[in-house]
């Protein structure tokens, strides 16, 4: 089955089995290996991509559902200033997610701080509990998210 969609801002087309999971298409057919796959059941949070701007687990999406949709993976997200807001904050707060959960946590944090209001600790804890990897220190993660929000807010004000 031929499926057209937008991947990291570029229009792509792929001829594949419709039931193939998006995570496998991204990794195997397009060679974008930073997004990881661990559980195939949507529980671990390591395969998150943005589908039409919303974070979704790519392992829960068969490729036939993304026809004519817009997908951003971490590779596409890395080239944006939004990414710098988060990664700079994480570096400052010594919050270093492991390579397995890195993608999922960065994508989820982006969605949280994009809500135009300061995230509180319970929201951040809830986000962290959605990711089964416990590599990150909770305190540094909470601080990292709060600073990332400040970075984004500051950049937004500078743009105004």
């Amino acid at each position, binding site marked *: 089955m031929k499926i057209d969609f937008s991947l990291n801002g570029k229009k792509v087309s792929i001829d594949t089995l419709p039931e193939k999971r998006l995570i496998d298409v991204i990794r195997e057919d397009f060679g974008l290996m930073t997004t990881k796959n661990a559980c195939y*059941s949507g529980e671990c949070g390591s395969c998150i991509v943005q589908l039409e701007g919303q974070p*979704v687990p790519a392992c829960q999406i068969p490729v036939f559902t993304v026809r004519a949709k817009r997908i951003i993976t971490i590779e596409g997200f890395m080239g944006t200033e939004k990414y710098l807001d988060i990664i700079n904050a994480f570096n400052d707060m010594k919050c270093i997610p492991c390579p397995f959960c890195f993608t999922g946590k960065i994508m989820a944090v982006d969605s949280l701080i994009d809500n135009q209001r300061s995230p509180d600790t319970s929201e951040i804890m809830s986000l962290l509990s959605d990711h089964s990897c416990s590599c990150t220190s909770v305190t540094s993660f909470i601080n990292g998210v709060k600073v990332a929000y400040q970075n984004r807010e500051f950049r937004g004000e500078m743009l105004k």
Partner: protein
Amino acid sequence: MIKNIRSPLVYYPKTINELLSLYKSMPDSLLYAGGTGILSTRNTKYPELPPNILFLRRIDELSAIRRSEGYLEIGACARLNRILGIGEHVLKPALYAAIKNIATKEVRNIATLGGNICSPYRSKTLMPLLALLDARIELRKQGGSRWLNVRKFIDPDEGFQEGEVLTRVRIPFNNYNHQSFIVTGDRADYRSALTFACFASVQKENIASIKFAAGVGNKGIFRAREFEEALAGRKLPLYGITEDPVFTRLTTALKNQEEEISSFHRRQIEGLFLTFMHSLNDML
């Protein structure tokens, strides 16, 4: 031996009429909206799917959310996070908590309300609550439609008939001033999950009305109407309720469900109900 594998054919209907017509001609096809219940239980690289798939997400009408004076009407393919976006003040605390409790935020971006109601693979977390709210669902097939109470929908004789598709859920607004919704058990194993919902309307230190429902896994809904009726009109605070003869009605009703509800879950239901009653006492 090499298995003869055929990849599924996917259809993208754009209107409900188109969908119903396709479904009538291919009654064995899989209705696919969010698909989280389907894919999360098939942890293989290529999930085995039926030969024909009807993809519902291109039908705008199925994702519509409407609010009228007396009720909220939600399309079966409305994503759970979009429903949460309506706000807690409209959804009321119990329904808001119930939806927020389902899976992770990322999964809720694709999971749908219809999926939670229909999926045989997952715990139907919302069903006891929707039953308490007297929610009604619309089932449509080519040439007709019918509205059905959620409680009746669970009954295999009254549920889906051939060619029928769940299209809308109508949830009446309620005025219960005390609401509780709790899920216990392992998220990954739906058979262990217990869903408990309880509403009470308290006026001038009296219980004007109270009702509760519980569900275990994806089985039916447990209600104890006699017990609810016996509690209505009682004055608060209600201390020592476990010694109250009214409470035995609950334990008896639960015991009658021995085959459906394990003793562990029965004790949990009693405990959760007592916790709710304590919270009513504490409100005074």
